[in-house]
């Protein structure tokens, strides 16, 4: 089947119900998107599909044929994504880093839809798990990207 990933068209040979995550990681060698739970619980596998954040570990690949998929590998090609990454680095968000691809994707999706989210909207959108406990740094980064001084 044919997928459109990061503005490029790629051919993959996978069963229709294979999760997009494993097509990305094993078929295409794009390992920036992470496996954490396989149950849409943690969000480490977050990618954008037509600009919406999606948990690729439970997204059958057949369901994203003909749609625009963006992964962390191309996040800096997106103007908002580039700002998110720059802020993530500036505020030193990452610790082990394993969940951060997904966090960056979630933040990018939020800010593309809503450049100035309220605190409640940030809280509703930034729900991915982080075992290192970078939640306050994530909140501060999104807050800053939303054009606010952090409280």
């Amino acid at each position, binding site marked *: 089947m044919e997928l459109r990933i990061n503005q490029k068209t790629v051919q993959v040979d996978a069963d229709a119900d294979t999760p997009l995550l494993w097509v990305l990681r*094993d078929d295409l060698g794009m390992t*920036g998107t*992470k496996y954490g*739970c*396989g149950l849409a*619980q943690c969000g480490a596998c977050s990618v954008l599909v037509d600009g919406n954040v999606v948990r690729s570990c439970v997204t059958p690949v057949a369901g994203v044929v003909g749609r625009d998929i963006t992964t962390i590998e191309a996040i800096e090609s997106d103007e908002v994504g580039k700002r998110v990454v720059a802020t993530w680095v500036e505020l*030193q968000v990452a*610790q082990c880093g*394993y969940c951060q691809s997904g966090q960056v994707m979630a933040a990018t999706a939020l800010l593309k839809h809503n450049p100035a989210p309220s605190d409640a909207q940030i809280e509703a959108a930034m729900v991915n798990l982080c075992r290192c*406990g970078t939640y306050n740094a994530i909140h501060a980064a999104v807050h800053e990207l939303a054009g606010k001084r952090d409280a």
Partner: protein
Amino acid sequence: MKVSSETTAQSSLPDLTTPINLSRRRFLTGTAVGALVLGFGLPLGAPRAFAAAAAATTSERGTQVPAFLEIRPDNRVRLMCPFMEGGQGTFTAMAQIVGEELDADPATFLVEAAPPGEAYVVMDNGMRITGGSMSVRMSYPVMRRLGALARAMLLQAGAERLGVSVSELSTEPGKVLHAASGRSLTYGELAERAMDLPVPDPVSVKLRDPSQFRWIGKPVKRIDAYDKSTGKALYCIDLKVDDMLHAAVQHAPRLGMTVGSLRNEEQVKAMKGVHSVHRLPGAVAVLAERWWHAKRAVEAIQVDWQEPGADSPVRVMPADFSSDAYFKRLAAEKGPARDDENEGDVAASLANAKTRIDATYHNQYLNHAQLEPPSALARFNADGSLEVWLPNQAPDLYRADIAKRTGLEPGKITLHSPLLGGFFGRHFLYDSASPYPQAIALAKAVGRPVKLIWSREEEFLRDVLRPVAAVNFRGALDNDGWPLAIEAVSATEGPTEAIAGKQGEKLDPTALEGLSGKSYAIANKRIAQIYVKGPAMLGYWRSVGNSLNDFFYESFLDELADKGGKDPFDLRLHLLRDNARLTTLLQAVAELSGGWKRGPFTAEDGSRRARGVAMASPFGTETAVIAEVSIENGQVKVHDIWQAIDPGSIVNPAIVEAQVNGAVALGLSQTLVEEAVWLDGKPRARNYDLYPILAPARMARVHVRVVESGEKMGGIGEPPLPAVAPAVANAVAALTGQRIRSLPMSRHTFA
């Protein structure tokens, strides 16, 4: 995988398809590809280390400079780090420490985990592990000296090149200067010659005066921040070598059970993508060209699991094991107990006291729940050597274990230590809790490299658990209501004795730490352990024994305060009146929080709130925490955590603050929501759906004050955790009158 010379250590995509046999000279010529291939944690340091060892005038720790450092023509410094990076920032800290004395900007460092080997044993205690919050505090002078030795070698090489004496030279970051002539040479230009020079006598180098530090003590940016924000950082689970098969396993539902017949083996073999089906000790495996196929197929296997034999080589999980029943059993244990501390006359004080308080506490099992599921990649090479990539906190121990399991000489085993996607104690050597023995067996069986990933479900089945204890406290007050005696008898199995499988001659210090070692001036005290060997496999979990014991002790101390009519903050000040360091720390946290107030009080938003205080002394560091809580929809809501931490002195204040935040999050997680419940010999949760870890919405604001007392350097990664739970529990008691004697709080009902 694309390679580019611009990538940093973590983004240096390994070209693992190419056989690796590059000479040092080729590296030093600095071709992009050569530099890059070398950039990925190859054991290149080893041959140079041996050469350096042969030439070295001393066998002192951390003096084999070429084993640690390569300086590239572009002035980038490659450091082979004795410690593993798993989020705690040790790669950045080591770049700061070495860079400070080398006179090279930490931002120019490429840091990788060093291979196993004696050269990398740099800690005072002669160990090489990444744990116990030891990395910086136990290697600080040695790693500084390493940088200074390398700088001396560069100066010597510069003197030769410029035809002047070393005394006429100085350095600026990344270069050697000859002030008199205005000439300079970059480190990159001098490195090849410098690294061939003999390492100077370690006592001959002078370390910088701390007042002159450029980087130590400053909030230097993490060297891995960009790669970790863009998906470029590579973890074990991401690695790939040519011709590699993917593997997935299904473990026996209870440890110790063995593989019987596979009822549908032929059907599974016929499933799409399946290469082969394998029987392993206590598990079955499927190999496939894609991990998804392997996982789906292995989960489809119907195994007739057999009950363990009497000669089971692993700890057997009984079919009737229940964690809740086990807590009751622990609380009822009568002994015999062994004393760790016994001062004054506890028995008489308790017997004669007018006011006595008894209370029983227990805690819960926990999983590590690091976000990266365990994996291992094994490859047998044509020459009979074995390469293994695996997450680990102790490379030498792992290599020795692999040698034991395979019969290979350690020299035939190359161990790679990728970045850790979180660890928290998960990646110590635990029998039956790591995928590498399986990956090695499978690679051997099929003659191809194999990468095995444990699914989240398999991980939660085989992860080692944070230990549990039931502690029976008895306390006595004097006539003025001050604590006169405290006795804590803990029925427990510590992680170290659990791993050993038996009680040692001495008490396991990781069983009682946090009950023992308290600084409060209580004249009569007894801390003792009743050793109870349990059926669950146990391990180290961030802050280890302190993670439970400080909850017990600091909560019970508040019970003593309440009974004696004392404010818990004043009680601590009173009991620490002769301890200037801890008095300062306690006052610092109060000041940070705007002055101590217990409450209950009404906050600006109208909610009723209260505060609790607690202290801990883990891993050479002192901490004090104040928590502010309310009850929201029947749940405990933690609004703020103020933490004052005194690790003596620090290397990176920004990383310290991040570690406090992270430790607070894990501390809140175990306090509020987290528990590994076992029923009928099985974990109730096999994924995050039934094993809640702290979600962003339950995080508290965290306020940090670092107090640098100048005392001996303590740890940072774990110490900010233990005081969180008791501070919250003490706040809850102040607010609700409910004394919480077991965790998590989600088990309790709040009005």
